[in-house]
Every structure is written in C-alpha cells, then in structure tokens.
C-alpha cells in the first residue's frame, strides 16, 4: 500500500515533468481532466483513456529535479509562502503559460500574482497580450501535440485489433481509427504507419458487416486528402480493395470508395495503371446508372482520367456500355459540373473510331446539341469540340434540325473556337445529306457562312470548312439553286474569288474551286464571277498546279502540298472553267488566255477525272468556230478519238461532241471515220440502241426514253462503277494501229 501511494505521488511528479517538456495541458492521464463520457457509449478519448490506463504501464520518466526557472519574476513585490511554493513547482514554461493562457492551467498551477498598479506591469504581463489569432494558433499547437502523442501510442495496438478474429473488436477498432482521422495531428500519425493503413485496407476488404466496411472506407477517404496518405493507400494494395468496394450495395461505401479512387487518380503516380489493372473501368461504367449527380460527377471524372490518351481504356468503356450511359446523363441531367465532366469523357471517346459511331447511334449528337445555348461556356465549348469530332460519323443521322439551327446562329460568333467548331460540324452534316442541306439553306446558312468566311481571314480551320459547307449547299438538293443565288445576293462572289489569291492554302483553294464550279451552274452568277476576276485566277492556279505535276511526272511519287495533290487542283480548276465556259463571254476570256493547248494536253492525263473535265471544257470552247479550229490545230483529234472508247460515258460524249464540232468542215472520209469510231464506242454498252438506230429515223420516243433512263455513272472523284456489258475484243480494233497514248510523247499526226 505504501509503495502504491508512493508510486502515485511519483506518477504525478513524472507527469508534471513530462508537461514541462511539452508545454502541454494535462492529457488526463492521471487527473482524468479530459474524461467526458463513460467508455461504453463514448467515441471520445475517454474510451481510449480507460483502455490506455489499463493496458499501458506507467511512463518511466527519469526523475529530475524540478527547476524553478528564473526564480523571482520581474514583477517584484513580496510573495507569500504559498506563492513561493507554487513558484517552486511551476517551470518557467508553466509560468509563461500561466500568464498568457490562464485558461489552460490545470490544478496545481495558479496564476502569478499580478501587480495592482497597471503602470507597473511585469514583462510577462506585457507579453501576455498577443493577438487573439496568435493565441488561438498556440492553443491548437498545444492540442496538436497532444493528439499526436496519443495516436502514436495507440497505432500499434489498433493495428493488431484491426486484424482480430472477433468482428466486434475489428468494428470497434475501425471506429476508433476513424475518429483518429478526424483530427489532423492524429491523422498525420496514421499516414506514417503503412502497417496501420494496410490493416485498414484488409479490414475493409474482409469486413463481414457493413459498418466496419464503411468505417474503414471512411478512414481511407480521410487519409486520401494528404500526399502521404495517398502513397500509403497505394502501397498497401488499397486500389484493388477500393475497386472491389465499387460493387458494394451501401451508398456511403460507394461514395467513399469512388472519392478515394478519384483522389488517387488525380494525385498519385501509378494509380491510373493500378486502377486499370484492377478492372476499375469495368466496375465504374455500370455506376453511370446511379442517380446522384455529385456521385456521377466524380465517377465520370474518373473515367476521363483513366481513358485520356489510353485506347484500351476507351475500348473497355465502349464494351461496357459507356457511350449509352454517358449520352443518357447528357440528355437527362442539369447539374453543370456533371454535364461538364461527362462532356469531357465524350470528348475523349469521340476521337476513338470505335466509340464514335456508338456515341452517334446512342443519340449523342442530339444530346450534346441540347447544351449549346446555356450559360456555361466551358460546357458549350466541350460539346462543340465533341460534336465536331463526331460529325463525320453523323452524316446520316436524323433529328438534327435543332442542332443545325443553333450552329447557323453560332456562325455569328467572334470566338474563333466556336467558329471553327460550327463551320466544321455544318460542313460534315451537310455532306451528302440533302435534307440537312435544305434545312441549313432555309435557316439562312448561306449568308451566315459567307460572313464566317469574311471573318475567318487567314484562319484555315474556319475558312476551309466554311467554304466546304457552301460547296455542299450549292449542289445536290432541292434548294441548291436557291443557295447558288443566295451567295451572289449576299455579296459572296468577290469574297469567294479572293480565296483563290495568295498565299495559297491548298485545302481552301481546293474547296473554293469546287464552290466556284457550283456557283457557275447558276447563269446569273456567270457575269459576277467574271467581274470578280475568277477566270484569270483559275487559269493561273491551273498552270501552276499542272507545272508541278509535270515536274514530278518522272518520279512515281505524287506530290502533296498541305495534304492536297496538285492533280486535284488541276481537276478542280479545269472543272470550274468547264462550267464557266457555258457563258459566251467567259468562254472567250478563257480561250484568249491561251488555255487550249493545255486542255488538249490534259486529255492525255492518267487521271480519268482530269480527262473528263478537259474534254468537257474543250466541248464548250468548241462552240466557237475559232476555238474549234484551234483545238483541231493542237492535234486534239487523236486523243479524242481514243477517248471515244472510254468506259466513262461522260468522257465519250464530250469527246464525240468536240469531234463533231471540229469535223463540220472536214471531208466526208473524216466524218465517216469519226462515225465508225463512235459506233464502236457509244453503242458498245447498248446493243438494243444499236439495233434501233439502224431501224428507225427519226429516233422514236420509246427508244430515247429507255436510253435516257439508263445508268449513267455518277460523277465523282473516285473510279466509277459502270453497269456495262463485257467488251467484245473482236469489235475493238484500234483505228490507227500504231497510235500510242503516252502523254509525254508528241502529239500524233492529225487525221
């Protein structure tokens, strides 16, 4: 008993000595000062306290003589024996604390006697007027060290308890650890213990009750706000465990798991790979069916982090129904942050050739189009970029009327990003889609696109798609003629002609010559085109491009400039001049620029489309007698005779027409030879027409109706399929047996 009493006194002294070193308030280890509740229902330290007091031994601090510090204070004055006793027991630190923070004193520490005369404050009292802020900070520091101390002592035992066989023990331990994570000091201790974090991870994974799993997940969530915590979780196998928790039926566990994973993905190196390896994507994508917008925002952000730049992840998302889930969210939610994170995932997926059609089929275009008129600029821009990426896969989509109308409105924007996207999307959505072309024309798209072209200046990312869109609108739909006229009426012709000038950006040039060709189909546009100087610009471009192709003719390689072949420019310019040549004055101007020799040379091109357009322009030029003579003088008969046998009926027709026009003044022998060649070409695919041609003059209505409804090959840049009979080799003998068609050779002798 005596020894016990003495050990108790020793303990008090020892705690006091301990307090000297730490400037700490009483931890309650002896006095129980911090006890609040009983340990049965408590989650506070009292439970710990009782546990510690029964489990740990008394701290064995070596006894040292208590120091009194500086003896008398500067306060001076007489002191009572009690005061002296108190001073004897208080350290200097305690006396400072007593002066500054009397509320932190414990029993046994009394405030220093204060001088009654305010004019004679002690130095300590002078010091005892720090700002409230400083005071608060120091109090926190005092408490901080206390919690850290406590946690350090508790961690080893808690680690063991988390692995206990008794699930109730594990549950309690998890709850305690969860509480420890609520304070920064103790949390810092926990993150520095990998074994503790590992034990929490295992407890979460093996938990038999939801509460334990929830507590453990909450612990990891708290720890994931620090770098050390993230690393500890990562190193302790936390990621696979958290991914497994994504299948939990408990909402709070799900929330903790996804949020912790999100923090890891954001800030922990190696986390993305680990989540992918743990099949995280396969678990996350089904979560898109949940209905909590904030939860969905975090989940979609995880998907974006995992799939950006990673093709395999994109395919996994696709395989698990990602596009449908993301489009559903886009269509049905209004929470801006969720819409933004979702649009970011869609943007990432929209560059994937496999995801793209799936997003379009799921209604992605229509869903994204819903968010182009809101107040969130970042959302609008993301939707636009995504729509632009998807647009080439959406040319056959229905129900885009609203989107098209919004895009036409956005053509009025000064924002270059918005313009780039709007023009690009419109260009693709009007591609081979007559309904969309008609709608855009009706919505005033022609005028808006002209203004976009004018504002684009040298920004090719705007100019090229804008011109392409105009080119689409001016052909192959019921309002094409309306669009052709609209370009002129909105003063677009000079702007279009100007695009042919230098500096040449070849994709824009290529699109522009195609647009000019379409505009020239409208007779009312012919004179404005001439007045805008389109003809000399086209001829100069043609010459330049042709010279380039000739320069590289000896090498097998095709030449590209800005991704465009010069053969395409040759073809496009000649095609535009062909249609412009329908106007008599234009025809004269074209011929006067010494173009006939070049057109005749182009008849020898290996590119079928070039042959067609050059035969076409010569056909128009040959309407003028003088030009017909020039064409003949250039030796065009020989290549034209060969072109009569072309599988392309357009080529054969133009060639025949030119031959007829240059043979009007020729001898009957010449005309007979033309006729014979024609016979074996024009009728070779149509034996019925051949038969009827020999039996009926004038030609009968029914024969011509059949002929004209026949399958002419479509006009286009690619090789054209032809519904033709096999050529009878016996019928096809070259009229001039030694004729060759190498374009590099001199012209053959004219007939």
């Amino acid at each position, binding site marked *: 008993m005596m020894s016990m009493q003495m050990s108790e006194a020793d303990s008090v002294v020892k705690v006091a000595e301990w307090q000297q070193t730490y400037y700490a308030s009483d931890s309650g280890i002896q006095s129980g000062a911090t006890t609040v509740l009983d340990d049965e229902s408590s989650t506070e330290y009292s439970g710990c306290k009782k546990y510690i007091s029964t489990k740990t031994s008394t701290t064995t601090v070596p006894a040292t003589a208590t120091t009194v510090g500086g003896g008398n204070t500067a306060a001076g004055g007489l002191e009572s024996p009690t005061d002296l006793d108190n001073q004897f027991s208080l350290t200097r630190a305690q006396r400072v604390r007593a002066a500054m923070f009397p509320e932190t004193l414990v029993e046994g520490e009394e405030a220093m006697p204060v001088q009654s005369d305010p004019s004679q404050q002690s130095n300590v009292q002078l010091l005892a007027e720090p700002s409230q802020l400083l005071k608060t900070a120091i109090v926190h520091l005092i408490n901080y060290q206390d919690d850290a101390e406590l946690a350090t002592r508790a961690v080893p035992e808690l680690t063991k308890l988390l692995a206990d066989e008794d699930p109730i023990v594990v549950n309690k331990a998890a709850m305690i650890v969860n509480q420890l994570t609520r304070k920064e000091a103790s949390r810092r201790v926990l993150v520095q213990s990998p074994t503790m974090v590992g034990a929490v991870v295992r407890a979460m994974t093996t938990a038999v009750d939801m509460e334990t799993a929830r507590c453990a997940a909450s612990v990891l969530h708290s720890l994931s706000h620090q770098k050390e915590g993230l690393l500890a979780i990562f190193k302790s196998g936390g990621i696979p465990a958290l991914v497994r928790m994504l299948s939990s039926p408990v909402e709070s566990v799900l929330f903790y798991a996804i949020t912790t994973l999100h923090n890891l993905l954001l800030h922990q190196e190696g986390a993305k790979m680990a989540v992918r390896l743990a099949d995280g994507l396969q678990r996350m994508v089904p979560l898109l069916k949940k209905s909590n917008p904030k939860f969905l925002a975090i989940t979609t952000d995880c998907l974006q982090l995992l799939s950006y730049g990673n093709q395999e992840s994109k395919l996994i998302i696709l395989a698990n129904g990602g596009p449908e889930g993301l489009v559903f969210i886009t269509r049905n939610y209004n929470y801006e942050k969720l819409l933004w994170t979702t649009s970011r995932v869609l943007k990432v997926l929209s560059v994937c050739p496999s995801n793209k059609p799936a997003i379009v089929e799921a209604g992605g275009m229509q869903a994204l189009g819903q968010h182009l008129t809101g107040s969130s600029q970042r959302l609008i821009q993301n939707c636009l970029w995504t729509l632009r990426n998807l647009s080439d896969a959406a040319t056959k989509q229905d129900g885009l009327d609203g989107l098209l109308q919004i895009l036409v409105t956005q053509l009025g924007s000064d924002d270059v990003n918005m313009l780039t996207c709007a023009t690009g999307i419109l*260009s693709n959505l009007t591609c081979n889609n007559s309904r969309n072309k008609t709608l855009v024309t009706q919505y005033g798209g022609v005028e808006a696109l002209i203004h976009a072209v004018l504002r684009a200046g040298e920004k090719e990312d705007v100019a090229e798609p804008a011109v392409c869109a105009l*080119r689409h609108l001016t052909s192959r739909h019921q309002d094409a003629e309306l669009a052709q006229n609209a370009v002129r009426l909105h003063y677009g012709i000079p702007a279009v002609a100007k695009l042919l000038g230098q500096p040449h950006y070849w994709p824009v040039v290529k699109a522009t010559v195609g647009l000019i060709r379409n505009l020239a*189909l409208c007779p009312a546009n012919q004179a404005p085109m001439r007045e805008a100087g389109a003809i000399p610009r086209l001829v100069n471009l043609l010459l330049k491009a042709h010279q380039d192709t000739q320069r590289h003719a000896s090498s097998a390689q095709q030449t590209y400039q800005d991704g465009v072949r010069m053969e395409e420019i040759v073809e496009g310019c000649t095609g535009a001049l062909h249609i412009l040549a329908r106007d008599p004055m234009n025809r004269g101007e074209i011929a006067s620029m010494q173009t006939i020799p070049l057109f005749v040379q182009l008849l020898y091109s290996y590119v079928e489309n070039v042959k067609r357009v050059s035969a076409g322009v010569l056909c128009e030029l040959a*309407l003028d007698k003088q030009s017909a003579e020039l064409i003949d003088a250039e030796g065009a008969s020989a290549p034209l005779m060969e072109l009569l046998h072309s599988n392309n009926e357009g080529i054969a027709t133009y060639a025949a*027409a030119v031959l007829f026009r240059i043979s009007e003044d020729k001898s009957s022998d010449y005309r007979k030879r033309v*006729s014979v060649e024609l016979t074996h070409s024009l009728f070779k695919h149509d034996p019925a027409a051949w038969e009827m041609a020999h039996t009926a003059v*004038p030609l009968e209505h029914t024969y011509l109706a059949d002929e*004209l409804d026949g399958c002419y090959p*479509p*006009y286009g840049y690619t090789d054209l399929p032809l519904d033709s009979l096999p050529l009878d080799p016996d019928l096809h003998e070259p009229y001039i047996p030694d004729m060759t068609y190498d374009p590099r050779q001199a012209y053959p002798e004219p007939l």
Partner: protein
Amino acid sequence: MNREEAPGKSPEDMYVQQKVRVLLMLKKMGSNLTPSEEAFLRNYAGVVHSQMSQLPQHNIDQGAEDVVMAFSRSEAEDRRQ
C-alpha cells in the same frame, strides 16, 4: 458485226443518228449546243427533242460528291476547371 457499215444504213445516216444521240446526251448533261446543232436536233429528233426540256438534269452536271472532313485525328486535354 461489220464495223464498217451497219446493215441497211448509209454512213451518212449513221453519222446523223450518232450525232443526235451525242447532242441529246450533251443537253442532258447541261452543256450548250450551237444554233446549228439545235436546228439539227429539231430536224432529226422531232418530238423527242421537244421533250428534252422535261427531262431531269443529269447528275453529271451536279458536281463532285461531297467528302467529309476528319476532325478527330488527335485529342487535346482541356484545362481542368
């Protein structure tokens, strides 16, 4: 088949028939004809020629097919906000 002469038809008749066909096809493709060619057709194609204006424009005249632009070549990260 005798490629020199169709049976029962003189070379001149053949020439006329072929020219009519070519000119009709030209008109269908939207090209112009000379006044003499127009007269030729009137003389030799009769009723059919007058019906030519009712025929739809040939699709050869409508220009090349449209081609999409492939924008989704690369992805760019946007600033996290």
